[in-house]
């Protein structure tokens, strides 16, 4: 009779093992240990199958136990969709395009930014501002070129301006890529 009663406990624990697969390992092990110990104590006092079944009925559905053990687990954050093709192209136009075709390719990238919900209007405006710095550098370069018999220092200034014109594209891309996704 004793072995029959123990078999009820083993069947219950097997069902609990299946139901608790999704629990974190430490919680799963602790629940298994607690219920195993409960069944050891309760089933030892059982004389019949009916007694054993009553013990299991009082214990409850393994799925309910698992739900209770998971009750205070943080709800997993919904999976964020990966970047869309448009978003990647916008970033590439600003980053790589900014080096190959300064200001023009990044401006096309920012225009693309406006077409996706990935960025807020304010983020797009700030990206325009970064490119605006490059445009100012370009205008300053024209002004510099217009000076007749420019001093030697002008060459150094021109190099800095060219660097700024080229750099604003990748900087805009870096800004856009690191902004949190709009809700």
């Amino acid at each position, binding site marked *: 009779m004793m072995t029959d009663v123990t078999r009820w406990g083993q069947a219950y624990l097997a069902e609990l093992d299946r139901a608790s697969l999704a629990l974190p390992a430490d*919680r799963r092990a*602790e*629940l298994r*240990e*607690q*219920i195993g*110990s*409960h069944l*050891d*104590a*309760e089933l*030892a006092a059982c004389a019949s199958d009916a007694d054993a079944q009553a013990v299991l009925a*009082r*214990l*409850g*559905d*393994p799925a*309910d*136990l698992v739900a*209770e*053990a998971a*009750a*205070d687990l943080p709800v997993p954050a919904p999976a964020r969709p990966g970047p869309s093709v448009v978003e990647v192209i916008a970033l590439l136009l600003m980053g790589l395009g900014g080096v190959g075709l300064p200001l023009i390719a990044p401006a096309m990238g920012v225009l693309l930014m406006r077409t996706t919900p990935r960025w807020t209007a304010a983020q797009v405006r700030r990206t325009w501002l970064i490119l605006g710095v490059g445009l100012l550098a370009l205008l300053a370069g024209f002004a510099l070129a217009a000076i007749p018999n420019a001093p030697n220092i002008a060459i150094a200034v021109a190099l800095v301006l060219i660097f700024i014109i080229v750099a604003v594209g990748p900087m805009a891309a870096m800004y856009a890529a690191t902004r949190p996704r709009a809700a």
Partner: protein
Amino acid sequence: MYDMEPDEAMNPTDPAVGEALDRLRRGALESCVLCILRVGPAYSHDIVRTLAGIPGLVTSEGTVYPLLSRLRRAGLVQTHWQESPSGPPRRYYMLTDEGARAVASFTRAWASFRHAVDSVVSGAALGSPRPAPTPQHPLDTTMETR
């Protein structure tokens, strides 16, 4: 519900009363476990047997164990293993200082909460409903309609 015998209220045949009890149970059971541990450390199985022996408090005995684990993670109880006269070592639960403070707070809160709910359920608090505000002077009415 107030006309029911206590046993009938605790093991209701009406599913709506069952749901109301479920909601109340869930909130109060943790505090009941802490209250049981007020008298000293207890073996987990004995805690479950004590709760199960009180009609209406626990629907499935097994759910008490995850609750005990939760109280331990919250730092309200701590556990230790103790040799058993028969069988494997047993896990004993005892209140931490924080748990003892939680019991004291619950005891005070429960007394006032029970009194408040009792007064609403019995209708005592609703005995003299506040009269709807009525204009005290004909002039007030004309002022309002303007």
